[in-house]
């Protein structure tokens, strides 16, 4: 066989693998990119504004952290064909099941409100009134899920994922000093020493990397997509690519705000975008605002689905995106109810939106440890997982990650409740 024939067959094999990946890609990519939701964008923007490029290394460290946690949901979903909520009910009983389900609902609804806050604030920069944003977004999101096909929903959502990469051209528009980025950001460092404020920022970044809804969402999406054991390698690759995308996007957000708004005082990403638009960097500010809207939209799509899937699993409703509306009324009704009720809250004059934003973190830390612990316990159950159970090295890695994530997110939640506790 000539070298050209060998090359031809090799390229054909690679092309086949790429086509197969594109067909199987979805849950990992979507969940990871949706992790950069409105709250996440604000956290990264604030990190760049406060510390410049100095915490870029943290975003790189968080890539494998997110991957190792989320890939467990791929294995669990593909092997058991059950969502995370159902797995908890079945394996640990009704007490832990109800705790997880109710907490998930509360956490998701509050997070959904923050996504609407982000979306309305982003479009307000272009003169769009909040009520129009809420109505248009609700119709758009209903349209995406009501088509009756998981595949269509997933591919449309992946288009929104592409838009999330808008921060990359935004950063290039600024022509940042690459040597400064490499010098300040790549090697782990603690700018100004390890003080309380820096600790708070590190906790916030870790807290936004792993959210409870992500575990529930990805496992249910894997099940709804119909992935089986043989698809696990592709599901893991999908999750890895997604985690790299999310980390890279976070780095570019930090580059943008670290270049333009270093030392500036802004409380959220919309304010950062507005400050950029007021100055000479109108295009970058516009990219920032579009990215914030997209981030909120992606987060909202995934979060409301995570709850509806979970309730569908437990209540025994038909709960697949492949179901028509008439076949899965309760599933779609719960999705729309979550969406509209969260949207309405944002429109209520004088609603305690700041309090809600703070409470999201606190509610999340009540659910996150339980969800993570159950995940590891389930992944160690030989009867359930068979040959796909965690190996010793996976247990050491994920156990360490879960321990650190629980400690850091708990400290973050407690410091949100009691801001003066740590000095």
């Amino acid at each position, binding site marked *: 066989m000539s070298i050209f024939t060998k090359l031809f067959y090799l390229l054909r094999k690679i092309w086949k693998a790429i086509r197969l990946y594109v067909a199987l890609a979805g849950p990992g990519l979507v969940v990871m990119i949706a992790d950069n939701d409105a709250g996440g964008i604000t956290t990264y923007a604030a990190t760049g504004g406060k510390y410049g490029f100095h915490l870029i290394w943290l975003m790189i460290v968080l890539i494998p952290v997110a991957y190792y946690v989320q890939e467990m949901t791929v294995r669990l979903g593909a092997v058991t064909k059950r969502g995370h909520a159902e797995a908890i009910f079945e394996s640990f009983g009704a007490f832990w099941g109800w705790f997880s389900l109710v907490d998930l609902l509360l956490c998701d609804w509050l997070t959904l409100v923050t996504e609407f806050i982000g979306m309305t604030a982003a479009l307000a920069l272009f003169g769009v009134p909040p009520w129009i944003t809420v109505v248009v977004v609700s119709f758009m999101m209903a349209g995406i899920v009501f088509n009756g096909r998981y595949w269509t929903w997933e591919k449309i959502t992946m288009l929104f994922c592409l838009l999330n990469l808008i921060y990359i051209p935004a950063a290039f528009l600024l022509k940042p000093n690459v040597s400064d980025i490499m010098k300040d950001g790549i090697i782990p460092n603690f700018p100004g020493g390890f003080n309380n404020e820096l600790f708070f920022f590190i906790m916030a970044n870790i807290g936004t990397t792993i959210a409870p809804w992500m575990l529930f969402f990805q496992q249910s999406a894997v099940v709804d997509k119909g992935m089986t054991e043989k698809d696990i390698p592709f599901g893991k690759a999908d999750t890895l690519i997604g985690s790299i995308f999310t980390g890279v996007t976070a780095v570019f957000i930090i580059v943008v705000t670290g270049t333009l708004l270093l030392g500036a005082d802004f409380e959220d990403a919309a304010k950062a975008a507005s400050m950029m638009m007021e100055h000479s960097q109108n295009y970058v500010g516009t990219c920032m605002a579009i990215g914030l809207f997209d981030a909120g939209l992606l987060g909202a799509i995934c979060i409301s689905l995570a709850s509806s899937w979970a309730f569908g699993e437990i209540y025994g409703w038909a709960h697949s995106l492949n179901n028509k509306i008439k076949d899965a009324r309760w599933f779609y009704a719960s999705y729309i109810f979550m969406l509209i009720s969260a949207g309405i809250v944002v429109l209520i004059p004088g609603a305690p939106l700041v309090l809600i934003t703070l409470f999201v973190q606190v509610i999340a830390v009540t659910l996150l440890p*339980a969800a993570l612990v159950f995940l590891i316990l389930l992944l160690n159950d030989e009867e359930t997982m068979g040959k796909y159970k965690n190996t010793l090295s996976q247990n050491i890695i994920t156990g360490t990650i879960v321990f650190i994530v629980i400690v850091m997110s708990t400290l973050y939640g407690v410091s949100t409740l009691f801001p003066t506790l740590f000095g």
Partner: protein
Amino acid sequence: MSTFIQKYFPKIHEINQRYAKPRVKLSKPMRIILFLLRCYLVLLVGLLVFKFVTTVTG
């Protein structure tokens, strides 16, 4: 409590019955982990309640 749920929320009662017995056999380390998880949650909910009460009364 169980009778109340059975009477007014039959679906919840049915779910409770369906998942009454955990499928995973709980080993001693697992029981310890779940106990610690309960303690953690009690502490966290206690802090939340404390914060709520001090915010409302203060």
